[in-house]
């Protein structure tokens, strides 16, 4: 496969969330606001891309029987680095995301890409594949977070965007949007749109 195709594939017909249904839990957990969704998206992209490259470099030396353990060690190391960086430079968001950064280790997208792609391909394609999958995951998170924060809190990235006039006319924020079930429904709507468009 060409590199461009490798990069773009996850955005449409092979999207990790809307097609493969991977990484749904984190998509539900962190998208009630746009900011954590953004940080989570970037973190996952970094983790997938880096661990893809590392595993791809090691692919000829890893014994098949213990490959899962090796993968986990690599992913855990990268996640720890990301977590420390977030704590140092974006403490508030890191507190909001709490365990979910640590739980990237168990994100199916990461393990899936390592198993399916990095173990059988060279470092450069692996890097591109990791970036593509991470960013396409991030995009779904951003769209979900955008809808949920806009309708649920009337703000975007913490800044109020719904004009006060509207509240005076009787508009109210939709409290259901902040609750986890609505994330499921928003993601379902994205899947719906995508399926309808692809037909």
């Amino acid at each position: 496969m060409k590199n461009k195709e490798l990069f773009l594939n996850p955005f449409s017909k092979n999207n990790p969330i809307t097609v493969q249904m991977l990484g749904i839990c984190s998509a539900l957990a962190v998208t009630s606001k746009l900011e954590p969704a953004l940080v989570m998206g970037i973190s996952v992209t970094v983790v997938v891309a880096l661990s893809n490259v590392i595993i791809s470099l090691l692919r000829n030396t890893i014994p098949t029987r213990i490959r899962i353990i090796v993968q986990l060690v690599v992913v855990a190391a990268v996640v720890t680095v990301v977590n420390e960086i977030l704590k140092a430079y974006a403490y508030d968001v890191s507190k909001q995301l709490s365990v979910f950064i640590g739980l990237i280790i168990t994100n199916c997208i990461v393990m899936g890409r390592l198993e399916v792609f990095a173990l059988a391909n060279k470092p450069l394609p692996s890097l591109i594949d990791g970036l593509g999958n991470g960013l396409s995951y991030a995009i779904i998170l951003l769209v979900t977070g955008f809808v949920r924060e806009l309708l649920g809190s009337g703000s975007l990235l913490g800044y109020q965007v719904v004009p006060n006039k509207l509240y005076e006319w009787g508009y109210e924020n939709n409290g259901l949007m902040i609750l986890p079930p609505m994330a499921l429904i928003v993601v379902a709507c994205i899947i719906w749109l995508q399926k309808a468009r692809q037909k």
Partner: protein
Amino acid sequence: MKFLRQYLDKIKPTFSAGGKMAMFHSVFEGIESFLFVSNATAGADETHIHASHDSKRAMSIVVIALIPCLLFGMFNLGAQHFAAIGAPAGWLKALVYGLFAVLPMLVVSYGVGLGIEFAVAQWKGHEIQEGFLVSGMLIPLIVPVNTPLWMIGVATAFSVVFCKEVFGGTGFNIWNPALIARAFLFFAYPSKMSGEAVWISTESRFGYGGGQVVDGFSGATPLSHLGSDAPNYLDMFLGFIPGSVGETSKLCIFIGALILLATGIASWRTMLSVFAGGLLTAWLFNLIGANVAMQTPPLQHILLGGFAFGAVFMATDPVTSPRSRNGKYVFGFLVGTLAILIRILNPGYPEGMMLAILLMNSFAPLIDHCVVQNNINRRLKRIKQ
């Protein structure tokens, strides 16, 4: 009637295949079959028997059964309004005020719901399904009187799309659409759905009525301070208490129940077991009696809030309750039990009936499965002996 039939026959070719308006066939078909029972018969070499009371007729009867509740609800809404502003008025004035308050809600709920149903039927090329006839009536009856109209519109749209259409339309929904609309409002806009200010309308409607609440008047429903200062039983039975439009008068609900039972649309098994479950649970809590809510007499629980309304009009929904006879007993009993449990143990959710019915709706297929499996096992045993 005859004139209507002739008119429909006259414009029918326009909507049939090849006609000018053939693309609106589903709309025409929907209206025609709503007005007249289809007289289409099977061909000579086909066998085809069906009862004349199709689901459009069944839905119309449910709507008729709801009318006493609706009318009394309008009157009570007006009476509560004039009592709250300290200017008691006659029953006619009260009814007119209630009409002005409820009619816009009905228009919005039917407009949005039927609009989506017609659009989807048109888009998919289906026949128009009639399920919304009842839901559209139920939604205004079960929300607080002060719910803003746009919220009713949003909730109706949500429930029709996500509770009904995505599952395949009328007859395929897992949950009761009207209750989903109410649950949506309850979780999305809690400030407009509970508390003291939402149950009695004080603003003027179309320039009619309106005024300041007199001092010391509390608009809370008796349900929200369960156990303390309940109104007398006659008021609760007749419905002269604040509450959602349709739920207050148990007498009107009783009339509706009689209509539904006489026509065989609702199941007496479900109704009976809901009340049995509710009474039994409330009685058991009475025995414990650890706090005021637990000491509420069982009869008072049945007469308060939406319990009776839910038992008669919501729990008996043939689509979302179990099909099997024994399953109906289990389903109803658990609805009644859960409703009282939620009311007493979770003060944050005073209306336990809504959540109880929705929760049991999800289990209806499982209950049916267990009943059928139980039958199979029993008969298998008989063979082996």
